[in-house]
């Protein structure tokens, strides 16, 4: 099975003309485009059943609640989870990590404890721990990388000593590296630590099964997987989530409120204070339906082939003039290609590409500690998704040269 060749037609934005050129969208690691069915599902909610959830007894309120909870069930099933109440809706993966740090970390970490993260984490999985560490005085340790951009697992066991939580990305948003999460989880569990996984780049691109990952917590975000912005997910094992205190307080997250205190609601509502982003949740439900209909294994195979094509095209054409970070084997990585071309600064490169309608990301990709490891302040990053094809890669490859002519020193 392969993906339909006319997939771009399902994404209204991808027929836009930008700066006189048909858009070439190569920034899906930052945010993906949205298919018609996701936009329709959100419009339909607003046009036909817009009402607050878990409150009103009237028809459209009941329908809105049912649509939202149905989306939760479909999202749970999308990640191999049998218990939809283990799926907590957040604003994004960043909020999911802040929830973990504040709620679990706040009640479990103190001086003498340690949290292990890695050198390839996004700021979302660094800063929440740093904020808490400044209060609680626990140590943050960093698992280093090998020269080819993999995690150096030889150092894992020794670093695990005294660690209560290992928080690791399943796929780097800079290097594209796919990390052996289940192996890390086995070793972390053996050492008595819990495992939280950043699935922001992984869940949108590969078949995801929480049993297989063996993680205790998984964070991901809707807008990178064909869904809308403003909706993220925290999945956690029931007994773990049950043991964690509430994160944000307010409506929806309580069973009872008295003058002398409150009783928190049951899962997942305990962690969902206030009116949820209902349209966004329904939109994300439509997005996972769309991904399911394509088949995540097909999505992965498409991206392996396209990544292979991109790496070969760039290396064949530019050889020593180009540095591509991360693993060279497409099976070890996702479709995220961070590159340096001659000595052209990423800002200038992306500006020249923009004139041809090509959208890539220039910057530190919210991974400044990794940038420092790589010895750069910024990279240019092209990232691919199910709607990209070889013509997008060709446009990128062809356009690098003109940027070089203009800016090479």
């Amino acid at each position, binding site marked *: 099975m392969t993906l339909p060749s006319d997939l771009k037609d399902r994404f209204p934005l991808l027929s836009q003309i930008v700066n006189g050129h048909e858009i070439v969208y190569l920034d899906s690691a930052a945010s993906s485009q949205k298919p018609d069915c996701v936009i329709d599902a959100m419009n339909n909610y607003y046009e036909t059943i817009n009402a607050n959830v878990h409150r009103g007894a009237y028809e459209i309120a009941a329908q809105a609640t049912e649509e939202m909870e149905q989306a939760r069930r479909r999202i749970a099933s999308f990640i191999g989870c049998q218990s939809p109440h283990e799926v907590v809706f957040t604003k994004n993966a960043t909020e999911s990590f802040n929830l973990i740090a504040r709620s679990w970390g706040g009640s479990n970490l103190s001086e003498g404890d340690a949290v292990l993260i890695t050198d390839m984490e996004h700021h979302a999985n660094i800063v929440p721990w740093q904020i808490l560490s400044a209060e609680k005085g626990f140590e943050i340790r960093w698992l280093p990388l090998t020269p080819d951009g993999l995690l150096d697992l030889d150092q894992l066991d020794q670093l695990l000593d005294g660690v209560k939580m290992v928080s690791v990305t399943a796929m780097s948003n800079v290097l594209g590296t796919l990390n052996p999460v289940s192996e890390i989880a086995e070793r972390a569990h053996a050492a008595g630590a819990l495992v939280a996984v950043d699935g922001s780049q992984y869940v949108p691109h590969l078949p995801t099964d929480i049993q297989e990952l063996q993680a205790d917590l998984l964070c991901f975000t809707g807008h990178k997987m064909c869904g809308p912005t403003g909706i993220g997910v925290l999945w956690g094992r029931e007994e773990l989530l049950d043991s964690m205190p509430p994160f944000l307080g307010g409506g929806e997250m309580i069973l009872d409120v008295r003058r002398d205190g409150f009783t928190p609601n049951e899962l997942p509502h305990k962690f969902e204070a206030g009116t949820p982003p209902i349209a966004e949740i329904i939109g994300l439900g439509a997005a996972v339906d769309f991904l399911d209909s394509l088949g995540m294994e097909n999505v992965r195979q498409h991206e392996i082939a396209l990544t292979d094509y991109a790496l070969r095209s760039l290396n064949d054409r530019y050889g020593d003039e180009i540095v591509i970070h991360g693993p060279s084997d497409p099976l070890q990585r996702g479709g995220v290609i961070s590159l340096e071309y001659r000595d052209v600064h990423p800002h200038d490169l992306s*500006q020249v590409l923009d004139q041809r309608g090509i959208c890539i990301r220039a910057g530190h990709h919210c991974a400044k500690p990794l940038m420092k490891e790589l010895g750069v*302040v910024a990279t240019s990053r092209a990232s691919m998704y199910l709607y990209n094809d070889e013509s997008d890669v060709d446009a990128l490859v062809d356009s690098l040269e003109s940027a070089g002519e*203009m*800016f090479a*020193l």
Partner: protein
Amino acid sequence: MSGLEELYKEIILDHYRNPRHRGELDCPPAHKTEGFNPLCGDEVSLTFLIEEGSIKELRIAGQGCSISQASASMMAAAIQEKSIEEVRDLTREFKAMMSIHEETMTNADQESASAAALTLGDLEALKGVVKFPVRIKCATLSWNTLLTGLDDLDT
């Protein structure tokens, strides 16, 4: 590609390829100030020597895109030997050209900015940046960094 030519004027590319006043001065007697562009990670480090209320010498270190490097290089060329007050005026004038300063600009600012109007010279070449709003921060990085450095002198 006309839009690009407006942004990347020849004089800008010249300053980018051949940056003036690169390096670092010994601190002390020089003062040091650093700036970051959190969007792209660009860094600039300025060291400058004050003598009798004037910037005797200024050197630039750090890395960045063509716009930030050219702007820093042109700034260094423009402010050598100028009094701190003149440098502040020029900075106001430059930031006004970058049009991010308008809402907070007081009458006094506007007066001093127009008094400095004739002094921008080559810096006018950076005017095209305004049409590319995400790049404005690149152009103003070294200027804001210098302002911070001058403010630190007062405290």
